[in-house]
């Protein structure tokens, strides 16, 4: 075999596991190296397979993966305990360029597990709010039981402008109910030309949220999205993440909407 | 060459093993045709095909080896046959309008066969007029008598001629021939009692052997035509099975009405996600009782008719 095999993953230790919901955990993995929010890794368990997972937290010696149980690999992952090992390769993709948002009114809209890839950005802004003209966070989940990062949300709620909503809930739920799009107009934008809007979530949620902001007069260029596709290889070979001439794994997953609007499946 | 295979097959041409070659299936409703049409078939086979014909399993001619791009030309040539056989066609010179509902087959019937109870080809044509053209995959066959030479019991609708034998005991000479033939060849519905013959109606399949064999015309046929309607027989990979009796002693008009009703039922229940779902499998899904409700809608059966309360199909299951 040739010297470097890009498909060969590296071992990583589970440092911590945080349970969010019945099916969603955050795994804190030992990792050193440069990683940007929005980038992803191929997380793998031999004999079970690989799957692309965005980093949901970045530390000096760790990265977080917030993983939902949705298949063979993730089912297996959820059996793992602190100290266990699994394999990763990455980081892949472009991630968010924090420079793009500096000194701007940043608005992040996240739907469900779309919160994971942007959590790194929130952390950064939360830590250095002065670098930005403002910050609004609009987060939506299906139901109260699906809410991720509850602890963080509590903290953010105290420090940031946060709107947390759920699509539906039982009658006794006291939080906001409704799709995120319903709350887009509640966000105050001071200067339309100096806004940076980051939208991540399920395809339909992203589509309608983008539309809502466009309707408010936000320019395409001031919107960023992160696309999720089936990325088998992460390195522009397997073809599954291609949208027209664009490979999500190479050219994304984060796109400025002025580019993204031309992408079609 | 870009070909919409669905249009080709709907037009009664086949997607064959040999790429870009097709085969025209000329169906002959009821199996009877004027000899003069053979000339046209021969012309197509020789000039457009490979010179061969295959007699199909459903009383038709399959003219093989036709280039797919000659379909329009062949459609123009076959037109007199389509007209001569009184095929319902929507646009002249465009060939067959649909090929989903299969050719209505018939044994030679009582124009020729002594055993037949009715003119099968004529009845076949009546049904043809009522249900063609149609894309739903339905197979109808008619046989003159329960010998069932056409094998109606492997069709969705099997129509078997029945005669209701009339007995004139004054003419009976107690020769016993009807009893013997009924016992040996048929179901043993006749017994001799006090030198005259008793017929057990529930055992009688209306085959007419008593009439055929009676030397004195003591047994004769009823003027009214009766039929046995057996349904949902089929061949196939999963569960070949015999059609089971649905209605005994049914009349012609009711059969046509039931078949037409069946198309309504298919329209309601067919699984359109499949390339084609055969009626038998639809009935498997909905159950016979639901089918029966649809089939008998507005059908006015005569008091003679005996309807099965339920049907449990058998057959071989793979």
């Amino acid at each position, binding site marked *: 075999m040739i010297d470097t095999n890009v498909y060969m993953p590296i071992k990583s230790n589970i440092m911590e596991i945080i349970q969010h919901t019945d099916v969603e955990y955050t795994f804190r993995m030992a990792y050193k190296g440069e990683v940007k929010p929005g980038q992803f890794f191929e997380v793998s368990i031999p004999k079970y397979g690989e799957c692309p997972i965005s980093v949901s937290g970045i530390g000096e010696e760790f990265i977080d993966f917030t993983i939902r149980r949705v298949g063979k690999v993730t089912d297996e992952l959820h059996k793992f305990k602190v100290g266990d090992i699994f394999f990763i390769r990455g980081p892949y993709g472009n991630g968010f360029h924090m420079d793009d948002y500096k000194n701007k009114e940043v608005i992040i809209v996240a739907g469900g597990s779309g919160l994971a890839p942007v959590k790194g950005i929130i952390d950064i802004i939360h830590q250095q709010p002065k670098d930005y003209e403002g910050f609004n966070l609009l987060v939506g989940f299906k139901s109260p039981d699906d809410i991720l990062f509850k602890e963080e949300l509590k903290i953010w709620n105290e420090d940031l402008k946060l709107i947390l909503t759920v699509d539906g809930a039982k009658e006794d739920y006291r939080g906001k109910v409704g799709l995120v799009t319903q709350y887009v107009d509640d966000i105050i934008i001071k200067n339309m030309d100096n806004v940076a809007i980051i939208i991540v979530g399920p395809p339909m949620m992203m589509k309608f949220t983008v539309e809502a902001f466009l309707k408010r007069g936000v320019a395409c260029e001031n919107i960023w999205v992160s696309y999720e596709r089936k990325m088998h290889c992460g390195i522009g070979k397997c073809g599954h993440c291609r949208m027209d001439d664009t490979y999500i794994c190479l050219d994304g997953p984060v796109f400025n909407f002025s580019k993204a609007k031309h992408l079609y499946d | 060459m870009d070909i919409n295979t669905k249009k080709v097959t709907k037009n009664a041409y086949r997607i064959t093993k040999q790429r870009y070659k097709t085969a025209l299936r000329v169906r002959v409703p009821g199996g009877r045709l004027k000899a003069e049409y053979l000339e046209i078939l021969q012309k197509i086979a020789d000039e457009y095909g490979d010179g061969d014909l295959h007699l199909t399993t459903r009383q038709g001619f399959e003219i093989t080896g036709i280039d797919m791009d000659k379909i329009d030309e062949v459609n123009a040539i076959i037109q007199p046959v389509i007209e001569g056989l009184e095929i319902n066609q929507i646009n002249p010179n465009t060939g067959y309008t649909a090929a989903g509902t299969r050719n209505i087959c018939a044994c030679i019937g*009582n124009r020729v066969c*002594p055993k*037949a*109870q*009715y*003119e099968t080809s004529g009845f076949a044509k009546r049904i043809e007029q009522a249900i063609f053209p149609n894309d739903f995959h339905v197979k109808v066959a008619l046989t*003159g008598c329960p010998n069932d030479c056409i094998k109606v019991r492997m069709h969705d609708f099997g129509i078997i*001629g029945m*005669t209701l034998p009339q007995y004139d*005991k*004054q*003419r*009976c*000479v*107690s*020769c*016993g*021939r009807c009893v013997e033939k009924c016992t040996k060849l048929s179901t043993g519905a006749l017994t001799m*009692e*006090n*030198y005259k013959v008793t017929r057990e109606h529930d055992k009688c399949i209306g085959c*007419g052997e008593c*009439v*055929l*064999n*009676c*030397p*004195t*015309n*003591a047994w*004769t*046929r*009823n*003027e009214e035509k009766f039929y046995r309607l057996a349904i949902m027989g089929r061949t196939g990979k999963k569960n070949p099975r015999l059609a089971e009796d649905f209605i005994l002693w049914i009349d012609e008009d009711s059969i046509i009405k039931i078949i037409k009703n069946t198309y309504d039922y298919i329209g309601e229940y067919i699984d359109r996600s499949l390339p084609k779902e055969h009626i038998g499998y639809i009935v498997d899904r909905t159950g016979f009782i639901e089918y029966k409700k649809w089939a008998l809608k507005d059908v006015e059966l005569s008091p003679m008719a005996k309807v099965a309360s339920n049907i449990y199909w058998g057959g071989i299951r793979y």
Partner: protein
Amino acid sequence: MKIEISKEDFNKSLHRLGDEYRIYAPVAMAYKGTFSDTDSIRYKEINTLDEIEFNLKSHFSPKEVILPITQVLFYFTEDQYKEPETEKKKLLVFLRACDIHAVKRMDQIYLENGQRDPYYQEVRDTVKFVLIGCEKSYRNCFCVSMGTNKTEDYSLGIKPVGDQVLLDIKDEELNAYFFGEEKDFEMNYVTSNDIKVLIPEPHQIAKDIAEAPLWREYDERCVACGKCNFVCSTCTCFRMQDIFYKDNENNGERRRVWASCQVDGYTDMAGGHSFRKRHGDRMRYKVLHKVYDYNKRFGYHMCVGCGRCDDACPQYISFSTCVNKLHDLGKEER
């Protein structure tokens, strides 16, 4: 007296005759043939001329009118024998020349061979015959060979011509019913048939004719259905049947029904013995009766050449062909 009357008037006369007569004629009965959607042409009581099938040969002969297929001889009330009521009406039967000749054969057996048959006699005394002339010979007819193509032995001759009917009234009694213009005409009769039958002279029939290989062909071919006998205008065999009524076992009846020498059981004796098991022997028994045995006993041939046996045989066995073979055999042996 020969007259011409309109069909309409003829029908009126028939209507009047109906008071006194039951009128029987060959009728094409739709759907009543052996095969589906075919006619059966046989004798039936009629009321008008139009009901009569003049153009085709009847499948069954008129003998069933005077010799019913099933005839009750006695009603039994417990142990009492009671004869059936006498039919009150007379009979008028439309038929062809050969069939009139056939009546003579029936008379021979029922009235002259041993004691007179009272049941037959009773009918016979009341029956009058109406001759339908034959415009043409039908398939399988060989009346000319048998000399039965013509007859004068009728009460009325009828010749429908368009809307008119020509009548040759021979029975004075019938003059009272038909009134028309006198008109001379000849009754139709055929003078030649497609089929010609040569009947061997008695001396040409070998004593051991029963052993002739000729018959063996029929062992295989004949299915012993008896149709040839039942359609025959000259076959007269019957069997007796006693029954209890299913509804009341104390009562019952004795009948006679037609029998056929071709059908199994004809020769069965109490105890199980039977004769002529081979169908060819039955064929021989029948054929020789028609053109040899009967002649020996009564001096003329039994067969009248109507050809109905050939018309009816499901196996296409031809009686006339067999007789001609018999004739050829006689020639060979001479």
